[in-house]
């Protein structure tokens, strides 16, 4: 709340610039977009201001990245966290004076620094990629306005020093996500997808709001430090309630079961958006919140177990669906849901560093996968266009053998695939391994293992989580290898003219991929396990120690894991992954013999997976249908017509009544108005005269 005494004016300015630069970029691009729209009303074919918009868009994020690096360097040189107070927002006058209920307090500490670097760093790369990807789009400036705004809100989310400020960022990124999913709002499917994301996220928001309400009524604080300090006096049951409410919010934002439904549909947006928002940053906000709220979860093993179990179920569930998806982005979408489940497993068992570690590495390789997919889609699209054919540029069945035409993209995609599968020494191996080891160690004996969740002993839950995690790793290996094989290897399945039209990405479409590729290879060095000391061990763990060290220890295993057991798990995981790759290679040829046009829908269990367990249809039948019917019969008939009437000033009971009343009173005759004044005088006089 109160600015850290060590925070200097210069640091304050840097922190303001970190959030302000993307915001300014958004405003500038927004202005540009509005201006373009205005020109278009006169000249419909006016070109989009691509150069200026990309300069503003990329420049603001890149500058923000530089600012983040500057702040980070100061932090590494031993300076304390930068905490800045930019004024109060909502102020409550209480007995103790005016206490700010919501203040614009931001903190750049060890945890938010990591997130800020990922957001601005990966964000910059994706912005660069977008310049090439969205080149022809008439809404170019609008796109960059939304994207910049997203980064600004994401930074508000991770830098905010209190729950409400986090919530503002949380809602802000949701808004941008909604706008970008429906970016091509001409197509109704996209608008529907945007609406779906909107509705599902509102359910999650209820949880977050409920958590804030309980926290505020119990502790009188909503800033992280104050609220968490106030936990000590609360009963475990209440803390569990807060934790579960937070979990609902996190599940909504991070697409966990059962609120995952919106994320696969969110792929309707432009692919760079999927990479930035729906893979690398926004969807990990739930993970971030659990880490940020670790004092709450550490105080409630039950809530922590719930987080881990939800994560495990989500990981397995989504991975199985990914096995039989044909849309390249859908595979990656379910893969993201699954990997988010992995992160939840990590933070759920109190291995907060492991969760953040996987968040970071996942941001690298999943962004690479999405951008690679984007490059493929872009190339396929161009090829179809060139060959004057119509086909789904995102369908894996229409691909095949693309590595010949796109060697650079293919190689990078393979690296990313091996990383997510968990092949050493790529980034994903280390982060996934650390989560599995953490779960195993806690299952062998820890406060979590001795707690219980809905009557189940914690140990059982943890072993279930471990089992699910292991199977998920196997499935991940299978579906990711399948994706890479179907897209890049073997013979091409589309027509020859299309195949000849495919060209590798270059320029702004390629360099971000290369940068992400390097990060994917090297990311594991961030937090090497003691077992594999090929560099400085546990850098991230030491870095985050002041933030989550204490809370990690509260749920930590009673005894450290023996080296050989850890070795077994690590080795087993690698073998598991290789086994999965093998299965994929074995089944590969049978998967897609023909292109999408000639393919038949899957049957049996495979078909069920293809249709994502028919959850969408079930929800449609069981939930959306009845609600819509209710809405049509009851709401539309009464409420909506009333509202609509009020809005258009036409019908509507209240509006009509108001119209009638004012027609009776407001007759226009001033010589009658004086009567009302006189009666008012009589009333006022009477009221006061009788009191004297």
């Amino acid at each position, binding site marked *: 709340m109160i600015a850290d005494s060590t925070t200097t004016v210069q640091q304050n300015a840097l922190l303001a610039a970190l959030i302000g630069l993307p915001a300014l970029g958004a405003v500038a691009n927004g202005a540009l977009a509005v201006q373009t729209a205005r020109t278009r009303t006169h000249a419909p074919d006016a070109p989009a201001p691509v150069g200026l918009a990309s300069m503003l868009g990329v420049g603001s994020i890149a500058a923000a990245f530089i600012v983040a690096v500057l702040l980070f360097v100061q932090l590494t040189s031993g300076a304390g966290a930068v905490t800045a107070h930019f004024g109060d927002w909502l102020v409550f006058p209480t007995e103790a004076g005016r206490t700010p209920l919501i203040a614009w307090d931001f903190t750049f500490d060890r945890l938010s620094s990591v997130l800020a670097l990922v957001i601005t760093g990966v964000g910059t790369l994706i912005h660069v990629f977008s310049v090439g990807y969205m080149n022809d789009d008439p809404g170019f400036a609008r796109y960059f306005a939304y994207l910049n705004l997203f980064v600004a809100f994401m930074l508000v989310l991770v830098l905010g020093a209190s729950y409400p400020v986090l919530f503002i960022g949380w809602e802000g990124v949701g808004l941008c996500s909604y706008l970008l999913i429906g970016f091509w709002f001409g197509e109704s499917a996209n608008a529907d997808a945007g609406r779906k994301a909107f509705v599902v996220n509102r359910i999650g928001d209820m949880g977050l709001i409920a958590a804030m309400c309980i926290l505020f009524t119990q502790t009188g604080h909503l800033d992280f430090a104050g609220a968490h300090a106030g936990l000590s006096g609360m009963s475990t049951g209440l803390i569990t309630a807060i934790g579960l409410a937070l979990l609902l919010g996190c599940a909504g934002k991070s697409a966990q079961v059962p609120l995952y439904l919106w994320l696969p549909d969110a792929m309707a947006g432009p692919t760079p958006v999927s990479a930035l928002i729906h893979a690398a940053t926004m969807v990990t906000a739930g993970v971030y919140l659990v880490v940020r709220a670790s004092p709450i979860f550490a105080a409630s093993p039950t809530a922590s177990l719930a987080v881990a179990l939800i994560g495990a179920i989500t990981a397995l569930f989504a991975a199985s669906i990914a096995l039989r998806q044909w849309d390249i982005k859908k595979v990656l979408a379910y893969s993201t849901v699954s990997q988010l489940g992995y992160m939840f497993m990590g933070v759920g068992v109190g291995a907060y560093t492991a969760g953040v570690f996987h968040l970071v590495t996942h941001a690298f390789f999943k962004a690479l996968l999405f951008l690679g997919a984007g490059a493929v889609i872009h190339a396929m699209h161009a090829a179809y266009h060139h060959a004057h054919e119509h086909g789904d540029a995102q369908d894996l069945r229409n691909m095949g053998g693309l590595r010949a035409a796109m060697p650079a993209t293919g190689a990078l995609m393979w690296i990313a695939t091996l990383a997510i599968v968990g092949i050493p020494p790529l980034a994903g191996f280390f982060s996934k391994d650390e989560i599995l080891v953490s779960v195993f160690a806690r299952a062998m004996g820890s406060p979590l293992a001795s707690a219980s969740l809905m009557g189940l002993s914690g140990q059982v839950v943890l072993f279930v989580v471990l089992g699910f995690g292991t199977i998920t790793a196997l499935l991940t290996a299978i579906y990711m290898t399948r994706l890479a094989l179907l897209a890049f290897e073997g013979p091409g399945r589309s027509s020859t003219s299309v195949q000849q039209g495919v060209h590798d990405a270059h320029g702004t479409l390629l360099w971000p991929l290369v940068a992400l590729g390097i990060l994917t290879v090297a990311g594991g060095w961030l937090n090497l396990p003691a077992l594999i000391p090929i560099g400085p061990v546990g850098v991230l763990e030491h870095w985050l120690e002041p933030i989550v060290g204490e809370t990690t220890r509260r749920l930590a295993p009673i005894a450290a894991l023996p080296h050989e057991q850890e070795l077994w798990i690590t080795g087993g995981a690698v073998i598991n992954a290789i086994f999965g790759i093998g299965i994929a290679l074995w089944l590969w040829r049978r998967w897609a013999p023909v292109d999408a046009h000639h393919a038949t829908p899957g049957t049996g269990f495979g078909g069920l997976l293809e249709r994502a367990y028919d959850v969408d249809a079930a929800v449609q039948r069981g939930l959306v249908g009845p609600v819509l019917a209710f809405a049509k019969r009851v709401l539309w008939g009464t409420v909506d017509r009333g509202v609509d009437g009020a809005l258009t000033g036409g019908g509507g009971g209240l509006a009509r009544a108001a*119209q009638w009343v004012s*027609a009776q009173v407001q007759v226009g*005759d001033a*010589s009658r108005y004086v*009567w009302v004044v*006189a009666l008012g005088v009589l009333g006022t006089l009477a009221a006061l005269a009788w009191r004297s």
Partner: protein
Amino acid sequence: MISEALVVSAVLFVIGTIGVLTRKNAIVLFMCVELMLNAVNLSFVALSKLHGNAGQVFVILVMTVAAAEAAIGLALVIAVFRHFGTVDLSSLRLLKG
């Protein structure tokens, strides 16, 4: 006599109010308002006997303002007459609802 003057003032004020309520001609209605102001002036003069001359000063000011008000009010009435051909308030009903 102060009390009596205040009563006379109240009666005059009420007569003016009744006039405002019963008249529809803008000019006559305005004259009724002038009567109300005169009634107030009587109160001021009577009360200034009680409290010193500030009341009389106020009366001078009220008269000046009343003159200003009359100038503008009558100009407005003339403007209305130009448009509507009448100064009957119940005939001015372009603005209503």
